[in-house]
């Protein structure tokens, strides 16, 4: 679980539509740390350092972030069907991004607008769900549905008014998910929220075990449930909003990777969360390698995550016969 992600990362850097020899890749990577006389083409260096590396790191961080968020939410809501978009963050971020496309904003502005909308959407959900200083799970879920449907409708509205020659395809492809926007600039703005959020979730992971027993029991055991819930919501929202803002809507990962984690290490959140982090990173990295290398065009991530993930999940499901629950 610790060795596989870096190994896959290196393997991913060797793959691509642009021919770069494995030796050159190794040299270029070493040259970033140790001073070396460049004996490789400048274009190869840009491919490896500016294009492949940021994209692979982005894939790993987004995959890891969405998976750990999904695992945390499934524990907190005590429901295995919950995924990261339950509180409306995906729909709200998606709407923000679509607005940015409509207004012809550049990539960075688009990312920031999508991120801000994602945070605002969840804040709205939280305010609607708040009842006399507590936020019951049912209230949260229902307000999440309200906010998500509202922003989904707004999102459809932007598609309705978008120019079919230019803006509409851009919005459509963006919604299907793609890591093509990954660059060093995009990394520098999207990674901090994902890392902070994931670290936060790892810190509270043992409290998740208590929370998963239910609000009443958790309170009886002396857990300040409102604080823990608030912290989890803040962390997952930071992660998901940052992920959606940079690569669009990537479904499936946040819902299914936690289950794969449970099959492998069991339901204890203390081990489950680090495990999903690693599995999610590997999964999205591999999927994105296929997305960018299989054809001359770019295959949208949203299509591949399920097309590749579903048979794999089915296989695991049959093999374990659902016994991990």
């Amino acid at each position, binding site marked *: 679980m610790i060795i596989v992600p870096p190994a896959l990362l290196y393997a991913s850097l060797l793959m*691509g*539509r*642009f*021919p770069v020899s494995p030796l050159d890749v190794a040299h270029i990577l070493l040259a970033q740390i140790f001073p070396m006389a460049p004996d490789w083409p*400048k*274009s190869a260096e*840009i*491919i490896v350092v*500016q*294009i*492949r590396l940021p*994209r692979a790191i982005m894939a790993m961080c987004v995959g890891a972030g969405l998976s750990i968020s999904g695992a945390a939410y499934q524990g907190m809501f005590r429901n295995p069907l919950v995924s990261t978009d339950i509180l409306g963050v995906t729909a709200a971020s998606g709407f923000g991004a679509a607005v*940015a*496309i409509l207004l*012809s*904003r*550049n*990539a960075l502005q*688009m990312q920031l607008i999508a991120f801000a909308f994602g945070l605002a959407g969840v804040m709205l959900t939280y305010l609607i769900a708040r009842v006399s200083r507590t936020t019951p799970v049912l209230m949260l879920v229902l307000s999440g549905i309200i906010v998500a449907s509202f922003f989904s409708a707004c999102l459809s509205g932007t*598609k*309705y*008014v*978008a*120019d*079919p*020659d*230019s*803006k*509409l*395809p*851009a919005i459509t*492809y*963006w919604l299907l998910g*793609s890591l*093509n*926007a990954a*660059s*060093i600039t995009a990394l520098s703005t999207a990674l901090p929220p994902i890392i902070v959020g994931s670290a936060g979730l790892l810190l509270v992971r043992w409290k998740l075990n208590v929370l998963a027993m239910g609000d009443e029991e958790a309170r009886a055991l002396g857990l300040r449930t409102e604080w823990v819930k608030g912290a989890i919501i803040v962390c997952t929202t930071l992660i998901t909003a940052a992920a959606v803002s940079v690569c669009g809507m990537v479904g499936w990962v946040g819902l299914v990777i936690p289950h794969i984690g449970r099959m492998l290490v069991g339901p204890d959140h203390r081990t489950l969360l680090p495990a999903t982090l690693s599995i999610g990173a590997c999964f999205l990295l591999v999927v994105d390698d296929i*997305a*960018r290398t299989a*054809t*001359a*065009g*770019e295959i*949208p991530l949203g299509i591949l995550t399920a097309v590749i993930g579903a048979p794999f999940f089915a296989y695991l499901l049959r093999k374990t016969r659902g016994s991990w629950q």
Partner: protein
Amino acid sequence: MRVGSLKPLLCAVALSGIAAAALAQPRSSAPTAAGVPAPATRQIVDAAGRTVTIPLQVNRVADPWPANNAMVLMLGGADKLVATSVQARNQPWLRKLYPRIDRVPAAFNAAGEANIETLIGARPDVILMAYGGALPRWLDAVTAYHLPVVMMPNDSLEGLKTVARMTGEVLGERESQAAAEYIRYFDDNIRRITQITNKLPASERPKVLHTASAGILTVDGRRSVIDDWINIAGGVNAADVAGLGRPVSMEQVAAWNPDVIIVGTAPNQQNRRAILDDPRWREIKAVRDGKVFANPSGAYLWDRHSAEAALQVLWAAKLLHPTLFADLDVKRETRRFYARFFHHALSDSELASIMNATAP
């Protein structure tokens, strides 16, 4: 007593139903019964292979296709427009050349869906549509009102001539003549370019990448109007994918390593800037050589299915082969074109706005 009081009401309802049926009946047969000849019609075969019957005299046209709104204007039939789309009304140069477009009801949305009631209320004689392989879903609804729908091709530069001819034919005699004049001009321009570019060997044809949007990287591939004008202008499309606006990865662009990049899609200049500023594009040949250009845009985007495609081939040829076309003055040709076909004398700043694809 109660039942009795309902009786007259029921009778009235029944009677009104019969009356309505009676009134509806003669509506279609009355004119012939009275000896008035049926309205004269003619037939046109459209891009979907349907034979469509349209009135002999067409005075009212519905046309949601933004590029074709400019075509209708160019052919002199814009005053016949009775319904259009929001996207057509939002074209800055179309608004400038034909301010009335703002008051033409927008009966259609971006996806070609129609508000049937607005459309029927506009009482068009004919509805003009772009044919993308499927007939509009609302076709049956408008056919019930005897509103003919004429589908026009939308897939190649050759198809553009068909669009000009069909649009002229639908609109009337005068517009048909304007279309014939335009098609002659169009063919002359193509011939002028191809008699030079046809002789170019593959090695002298620069690889051209035409991007459709920058934020989400999409490019225009083979089998499209874009591919057609790149070939005519003496280039070869770098994007080895099929169709318009296809998403591709950054690395694939690097692997294609285009010699020239042409940035389509508003805001062209801003999207061009984004490419020049992005370190990932830095080592691509076109960027290194400073050959990244914004596509001009006028009454419609020059690079798409627009009347100005006749100018696009000149502009692209001069761009790709400046020495071969040293005597070709694209700006002068552009002035002439707008004066001759849009009856608008371009000022210097207006010319610059078209060449730079900024709003007038």
